[in-house]
């Protein structure tokens, strides 16, 4: 048996070959996400509220997967751009191809005030990684309007506001009790 990592042997049999491939996919942005992106440029977080169950989806998907009904512009609801950290993790980045992160970074879930939408995998800014707490009150840090850019938003952005919101920063208000949120999971 050969060792774990085969070293190429100039005179020996070929045991390994590199195959690098690059695939490009160009997908039209669907109308629902296009509109979400336009509203982000305008400094607004707009989701869809299901006409049947009342759950709010941010970003909107064009349907409620629970009720299996379509949602449209008529179901739009504007959401607060401030809220509470309900959960988080600190990721130590692995250096894989395309990775740009080098230092540990936080990804947090922020429950928007009004209680009916949570944004997941959000950046937190102006707070050291080891001071992040569940229950922390935060507000969105919007890029200046002229700098906002939604070109990175795709149909598969998984709830991103990237290009418009730099992250969420502590407001300085007293924390809400962590137990209120940790019990309910999420994200």
């Amino acid at each position, binding site marked *: 048996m050969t060792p774990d990592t085969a070293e190429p042997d100039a005179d020996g049999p070929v045991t390994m*070959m590199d*195959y690098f*491939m*690059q*695939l*490009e*996919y*160009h*997908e*039209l*942005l*669907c*109308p*629902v996400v296009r509109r979400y992106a336009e509203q982000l440029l305008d400094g607004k977080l707009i989701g869809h509220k299901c006409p049947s169950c009342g759950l709010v989806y941010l970003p909107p*998907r*064009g*349907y409620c*997967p*629970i009720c*299996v009904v*379509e949602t449209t512009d008529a179901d739009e609801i504007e959401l607060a751009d401030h809220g509470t950290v309900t959960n988080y993790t600190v990721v130590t980045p692995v250096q894989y191809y395309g990775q740009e992160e080098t230092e540990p970074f936080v990804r947090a879930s922020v429950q928007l005030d009004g209680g009916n939408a949570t944004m997941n995998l959000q950046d937190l800014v102006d707070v050291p990684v080891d001071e992040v707490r569940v229950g922390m009150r935060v507000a969105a840090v919007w890029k200046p309007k002229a700098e906002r850019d939604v070109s990175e938003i795709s*149909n*598969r952005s998984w709830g991103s506001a990237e290009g418009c919101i730099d992250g969420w920063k502590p407001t300085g208000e007293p924390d809400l009790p962590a137990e209120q949120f940790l019990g309910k999971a999420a994200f």
Partner: protein
Amino acid sequence: MADIAIVGYAQSPSWRQSELTEPQFLFPVISEAIQQAHVERRDIGFTCAGSCDYLSGQTFAFVMNLEAVGAWPPISESHVEMDGAWALYEAWVRLQHGDIDLALVFGSGKSSPGLPSEIYPLQLDPYTLTPLGADPVSLAALQARAMLDKGTITEREMAEIALRSRQHGATNPYAQVKDGRGDVDAMLAEPYVTAPLRRHDLPPISDGASAVVLATADKARAVCDRPVWIRGIDHRIEPHQPGMRDLTESLSTRQAGNHAGVADRPVDVAELSATFSHQEKLLREALGLGDRVEINPSGGALCANPVMAVGLARIAEAARAIRERGATRAVAHATSGQCLQQNLVCVLEGA
């Protein structure tokens, strides 16, 4: 094996490029199939999907499609990284247990975002074929060449198949290529894309989805006055290397057809996943389909090719031929891999 029937079916139109996401255009297709079946979503005992990550350009792409199903409360559900026709097969097997009586099957895919010539070489043997960059059209061209050299087809016949498919496609609201005008001589004057294949010999690039609802016998009779019975279904694969197969025949289609019992009784209609014109003749012969059989009244894959849904769409179209146009017995065929490496055959009957 227990009798299983198709009690509902639906398709999206095929688009060259949809602006909707896959879950968004899948959503109404699933709802329509369930509605047509006259069943309740919550009564479905098993769901199976077919789709492909590399086609979608995303790992775990199928996860988003679950949102189009109604997966809350939780459901019993599975997924194959294959055409929806194989998802139908898995559901058909599951229904044989007899503990549940309804299954939902769907297939979906967007071919528009990616480049087939970039993606499909990855579907080949990574050591000997992928590095050659062998794309689907080139491989199909090799197969067509083999048939031409053997004398089992002519370029004129290929053009005739293409023209007839388009004429059928013109009558199909779901078809993408619907221009039935043209004449064979003009078509033969067109240049090759990859010899000996011309543009008309190739499938379109399509985004689309299809869905089917299956029921066990008692349930089928309860919900439906015209269930479409699956009399036989089978699938087989051949060796991978094109050089190891006789590309002018489809041995696995023949085997699957035998196991599915195609020859047991006369066939009225056949919906074949012939992605390239020459493949229609090849598949006809593999399935022993004579001149009286109407081939691809839907227009087939030459008129709409929503990869991952196209095989299931053949089954839906065969069911349609029985339920809506009075056919008694139909054969549907699905394929996977290049040059018809893997094939599924499904025999349907109206009574």
